[in-house]
């Protein structure tokens, strides 16, 4: 429980830093820290596979590409946003909160640290079992979607200017 509070608190602090930093690199690194902390939260919930995949895919690959692009473009410090931006942003955040609240209140009312999952839950075997038997169609559709995105990116990049 204490571990959860520390991790959750830190991840909230870092996710706020993502938004409130002027320097884009600092924002990106704060996002990396947030993703890493959430991965550790998954680890404490006996979901090692999800946690490790979170680090591998999000913290380790996608954020590196973010940084790569930021470094290539090398933008300076962001100027302060106008009031309208802040209002719009807050509005969007509140809307998202309304979407999330029903899920949060209905999620079985389990306190962290009391995860009932045990045994093979979250193991690579059980994950693969459900991915390749029960959910094989969505899985394949998602992979086709990714393929379409890759082909589209190649076509765009190869276009004669």
């Amino acid at each position, binding site marked *: 429980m204490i571990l959860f509070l520390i991790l959750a608190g830190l991840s909230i602090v870092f996710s706020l830093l993502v938004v409130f930093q002027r320097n884009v690199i600092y924002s990106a690194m704060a996002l990396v820290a947030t993703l890493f902390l959430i991965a550790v939260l998954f680890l404490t919930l006996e979901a090692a596979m999800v946690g490790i995949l979170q680090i591998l895919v999000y*913290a380790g690959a996608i954020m*590196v590409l973010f940084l790569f692009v930021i470094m290539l473009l090398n933008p300076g410090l962001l100027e302060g946003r106008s009031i309208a931006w802040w209002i719009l942003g807050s509005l969007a955040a509140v809307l998202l909160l309304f979407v999330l609240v029903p899920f949060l209140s209905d999620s079985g009312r389990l306190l962290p640290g009391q995860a009932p999952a045990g045994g093979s839950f979250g193991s690579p075997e059980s994950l693969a079992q459900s991915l390749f038997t029960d959910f094989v169609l969505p899985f394949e559709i998602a992979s086709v979607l990714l393929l379409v995105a890759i082909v589209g990116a190649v076509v765009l990049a190869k276009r004669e200017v």
Partner: protein
Amino acid sequence: MIVDIGIIAAKALMVLSMVLNLAGVLGWIERKASALIQDRIGANRASIFGFAGLGLVNTLIADPIKFLTKEDFIPPKGDRLLHTLAPCLALFPALVAFAVIPFGDILVLADRTINLQVANLNVGILYIFSMASLSVYGIVIGAWASNNKFSLLGGVRGSAQMISYEIAMGLSVMGILMIYGTLELQEIARAQGNLLWGWLPAWGIFLQPAAFLLFFTAAVAETKRIPFDLPEAESEIVAGYHVEYSGGKFLMFFAGEFAEIVTAAGLITTLFFGGWQVPFLMRDGFHFPWVGTLFLPQLVVALLQVGAFTLKVLFFCWLQILLRWSLPRFRYDQVMRLGWKMLLPLALLNVMVTAVLIVAWQSAPLKP
């Protein structure tokens, strides 16, 4: 309870100190090896009160003193915080990645079963890959925080190269995972103790020779050493991402690189060369085919296994150093072409061929 915690702490400390010390020793071996290869004498100037006899010991003492007493320079227009953070980000993943690599079978001491592995995660190898993917940040952040064009070029090269080769590295071990049917490195190492046709150890190298070549190439590229040292490339961009680093922080980058070599060697050993397995050595002694059996006490077996693991790791460290002083550097487009157009398709092909063979094998009437 106390004893259990003590055992875990002792294992963690042992592996951590082994990786760190081996990194230090490799720094000396690298200089001596380069001298040997280039027909020089090599590091022989470190002497304690005029006594230069023990080259290794002297250099091991002299190196840290030299590094730690140098000025720690932070570029005035650079970013102080990130400049300091970057070496830690480079060293940390390299040191913790070794935790899931098993260095021996289980050891039974006074009715206590000790698994000779620091952390037995059921995601095993994915943990190492995730740590390897985090090690990019040290380079990228260090390069950016130095506020130097050469650094930035090195950082951009490094991030692109490591992302590219991570994919090839991950796919190349797929065949191994399919054959042994697990992600746990201890299980993989144990499965390699089986014998094929009663005489050939079921090591990864015999079952997946192509995967070994692909994985070894990708692992060398991940450690960013010649022929893949594009992020450093002294003759092109001075020293790349750590141009602006000196003193202790440079030492951390340096140690991180050698720790990565040790981890790569450990992973290659575990996946393809039986890990801690000694051929024909079972838990109760040697079982030679056609010859006979030699029973050994359990402690001797464990020592032999740990010794075999250490020897194999040292061999692959040596092989990487040998490679670094034998090959020229690739051009940048060649690195990208090799990664994306050769390693990646070959790794995919390897996965397909392995899958077909496994299905054919399982439906075949004769199994070993």
